[in-house]
């Protein structure tokens, strides 16, 4: 572990001792109005448009140009010819309308927090991993680990996706228009995974919490994944969400299969309380 005492972060309060207790500092006003962007986010104008032709650019150059455009206030950006390059358009922390005309390679659109993105082609492994918020729509198919460790937002693939979709999902909604591969929802912790086609083997294996909805056939359920009856709120929420993206459940929403955690694998120890902290 790095020696924090020699780092400037030590002066800011980052010490090596275990966190416990609470801060009495007041960090915000409950009466605050109309401040909708994080202090470090770029202030962009959605009506200010720009394009990047990525054909002869390396990944770093594409991301640099994207950042410069956001910095100068562009809120609607189109990237042409992404050429299935890896790690494009990652770490965007502000609102933005982004269109990628073509396909992406591995780890595209990772760590997003806010933007609305549309990809007209396909995406490779781990698209939108660790996404925090926003919307991502993939018009064609996606590779494995689609939405790995996603924490929030809507991630949609209109086509089919590979294995381990939503592995370690911690929140948000993953919506698959076609089929999903084996071990989808593996170690899912919360959030919602919706599959309008069929699901491969070991669906929801070792899921801790969260909900999986499947419209087609399920090859097999994983360990501790169990079926639960659909409720009115499930149907209403699914109707609303599918309508947003122009998708429909082939056999009707009420006939979808709902999978949740059986909670037989839950295991707690007594260390967790001392790791918690309270603020305000």
């Amino acid at each position: 572990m790095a020696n924090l005492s020699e780092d400037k972060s030590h002066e800011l309060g980052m010490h090596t001792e275990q966190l416990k207790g609470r801060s009495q500092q007041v960090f915000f006003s409950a009466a605050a109005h109309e401040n909708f962007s994080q202090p470090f986010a770029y202030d962009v104008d959605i009506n200010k448009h720009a394009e990047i032709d990525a054909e002869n650019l390396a990944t770093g150059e594409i991301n640099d140009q994207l950042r410069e455009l956001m910095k100068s206030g562009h809120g609607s950006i189109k990237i042409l010819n992404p050429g299935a390059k890896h790690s494009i358009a990652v770490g965007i922390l502000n609102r933005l309308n982004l269109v990628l005309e073509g396909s992406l390679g591995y780890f595209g659109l990772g760590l997003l927090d806010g933007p609305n993105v549309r990809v007209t082609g396909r995406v490779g492994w781990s698209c939108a991993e660790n996404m925090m918020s926003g919307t991502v729509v993939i018009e064609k198919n996606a590779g494995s680990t689609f939405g790995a460790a996603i924490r929030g937002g809507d991630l949609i693939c209109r086509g089919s996706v590979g294995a381990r979709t939503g592995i370690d999902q911690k929140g948000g909604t993953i919506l698959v228009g076609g089929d999903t591969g084996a071990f989808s929802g593996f170690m899912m912790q919360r959030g919602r995974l919706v599959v309008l086609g069929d699901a491969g083997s070991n669906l929801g294996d070792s899921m801790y919490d969260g909900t999986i909805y499947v419209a087609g056939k399920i090859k097999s359920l994983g360990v501790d994944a169990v079926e639960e009856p659909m409720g009115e709120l499930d149907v209403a929420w699914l109707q609303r969400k599918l309508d947003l993206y122009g998708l429909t459940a082939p056999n009707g929403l009420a006939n979808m299969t709902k999978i949740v955690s059986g909670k037989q694998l839950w295991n707690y120890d007594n260390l967790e309380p001392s790791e918690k902290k309270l603020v305000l």
Partner: protein
Amino acid sequence: MTEKSTRDIDHYLNSDGVDSEREKLIGQTIGYRYDVNLLPDYERLTPYLASYLEYMGWQDLNWLEDVHMGYEENRAAVFDRNINGWVTVPPDIELPDNQQDRDMIARELLVKFQMSADHPLVELRRAYEKFE
């Protein structure tokens, strides 16, 4: 519906929440102190949240669908994933008698906290930022 979701809504405000034999043995609540799978009732959306969604260009609650009001140390609180900690709800805010309305309050407070210039991430960013 789970056993916990049918409990008195103020259960974790009025008790330590350590109920079962197993929980007493390990000294803490097993599982979340609220239903993490509770889907939002959009009829209860607040005007502030509606303005936030419009600003971001979202047609529903997006990441806020996963935000609920929780309970820590007999106080209402909302979990902020960015600081990995609980933000307590100011005591002068009157809590509604149902979880759906409480969740909307929690979402509104969390947005205000995350957008605040005093959010702890602002200082952390100064220490660790890689980009301007």
